[in-house]
């Protein structure tokens, strides 16, 4: 009961407090001399947002870097010890390798399948209905998606009834059941596929919107000149879609590096399926704070190039605004 009251107070109270902040603050600022007004007012307005960003992102970022060079009790400097641990311990190296697998294959398949499906659906009349089907997993949480796929991958020893969809299908064709999530050659691809399955609809929708903006005249002209569909896709459609593909691709790379939920729910990182984010969480949960911090910094460093790309793109957009 108390909790409902707290939540209700927050829902009504926070906007009211902000409203009061704006109205009262402006009343004070309006009384100030002009030059002081123009100086103070913007900071007054931006303060809550900047404050939140500072407390929850900028300060923690700096502090995490600091912690990664400290011992676990935060009493002394340990140089690069936590990083040495990360780059020499087999378990953490496995997580690094898996994150690279995610980076390459998740991005490639999510964007690739999104592109292929967008192009294929552009040619049929039931496009909008088919799009809904492909998009359906997008709003589903990674937790629910993992349970969906836990059933798809379910494995029983050979000889017993296979209740997992994939193994039952394999059995129908006379194959032996595969322990998808345990077998070290299939588990990482299986997890990556769950990720791809969840996000392909997202890529498809964006690429498809960009596909619709290609003028049909260009395509018709190419067809008249006798170009076949494959050549059209290769020589006209893909180059025109390239800017969109790179934007979606960067988003997918960032997603791949941050991957946590699917691995955590389906395998908890067991059987060599750990990724950087689950590794970091495990260090945190086992109170190896400075190691966890070092893992976090490694993850951050991997994302820095993309951060730079995003800022560059933003600056270019600003110039053309």
């Amino acid at each position: 009961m108390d909790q409902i009251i707290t939540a209700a107070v927050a829902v009504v109270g926070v906007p009211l407090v902000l409203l009061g902040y704006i109205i009262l603050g402006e009343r004070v600022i309006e009384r100030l001399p002009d030059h002081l007004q123009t100086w103070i007012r913007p900071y007054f307005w931006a303060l809550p947002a900047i404050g939140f960003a500072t407390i929850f992102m900028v300060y923690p970022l700096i502090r995490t870097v600091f912690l990664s060079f400290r011992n676990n009790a935060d009493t002394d400097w340990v140089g690069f010890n936590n990083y040495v641990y990360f780059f020499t311990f087999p378990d953490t190296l496995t997580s690094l390798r898996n994150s690279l697998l995610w980076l390459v294959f998740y991005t490639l398949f999510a964007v690739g399948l999104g592109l292929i499906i967008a192009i294929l659906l552009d040619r049929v009349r039931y496009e909008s209905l088919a799009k809904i089907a492909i998009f359906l997993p997008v709003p589903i949480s990674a937790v629910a998606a993992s349970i969906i796929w836990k059933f798809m991958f379910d494995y029983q020893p050979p000889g017993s009834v296979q209740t997992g969809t994939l193994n039952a299908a394999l059995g129908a064709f006379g194959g032996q059941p595969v322990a998808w999530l345990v077998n070290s050659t299939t588990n990482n691809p299986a997890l990556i596929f769950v990720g791809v399955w969840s996000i392909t609809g997202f890529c498809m929708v964006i690429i498809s919107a960009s596909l619709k903006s290609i003028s049909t005249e260009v395509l018709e002209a190419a067809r008249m000149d006798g170009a076949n569909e494959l050549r059209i896709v290769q020589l006209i459609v893909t180059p025109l879609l390239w800017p969109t593909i790179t934007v979606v691709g960067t988003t997918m790379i960032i997603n791949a590096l941050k991957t946590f939920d699917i691995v955590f729910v389906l395998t908890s990182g067991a059987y060599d399926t750990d990724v950087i984010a689950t590794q970091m969480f495990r260090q945190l949960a086992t109170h190896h704070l400075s190691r966890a911090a070092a893992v976090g910094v490694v993850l951050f460093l991997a994302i820095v190039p993309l951060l730079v790309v995003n800022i560059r793109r933003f600056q270019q957009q600003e110039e053309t605004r």
Partner: protein
Amino acid sequence: MSGVQVETRRETARAGTAVSVLDRWGHQLQRLPLHLVIIIFIAIWIVPTIGLIVNSFRNVQDMSNAGWWSALFPPHGFSLDSYNQVLQTENVATSIFNSVLITVPATVIQLAIATMGAYAFAWMKFPGKDIFFIVIVGLMVVPIQMTLIPVLQLFHTFGLAGTFIAVWLAHSGYGLPFEVFLLRNYLGGLPREIFESAEMDGAGHAVRFLRIAVPMTIPAIASLTIFVFLGVWNDLLVSLTFLGSSPNRPFTVVITQLVTSLGGGWQFLTAAAVLQMSLPLAVFIFLQRYFVRGITSGSVKG
């Protein structure tokens, strides 16, 4: 290829309808591989979810005796056992409730603050504005893993560890950069004349913000609300870190903990998964237009 089709079409038009029908079939037959590939894709993307939903309406015994597809044929053996079992499992009912109590305030708090900050960035000049904004663009991609430890320590220092307030604040902090970015672009695109004429009429910033900027930004705020709401509802990492063992933990965390703690007999969690995803799916189905528009206009991080 299409040149030939044009030719044949002209001929068939002359030859009458009977041939025309045959020709259309031929044309469709040629496209059969295309349809087949599409149908396979649709099947891969839709069958797993259907399987889960079907399974959720069977009891655990049936689920471990035969796959979900067997329930498609009589005797179906549908039952609500799994739902009963899930709702009676310790913490589950509370956690669904917690999810609501986490999601609604977190969404309101961050959107209120983001709109105000976006207004400053869109319509005010101040030294350092560009640098502040570039930092915000950069923060949009910073992995939250990078922030978890210090934020956790902060919450402990202020006695907020394990409370709703902690996750409301954390979600707001993590969501703000992106929301400020998006709303600032939207607000900045509003016509300058409206703000200028309001200023001439003596309207201060408070009035311009509340009477002009906010009402005109409602479409953007609305589609952002959908995504922020679902993002928090579906979140695992933030709640797992800040509420992992608290009685306030949300549905996603409880489901995850049950999945990893139950060795066998986890199958009844199908019902939990269906309950968890029913809200996002309902939102998607009923607000489809906003959903797709929101994504294509860049209002989602992915």
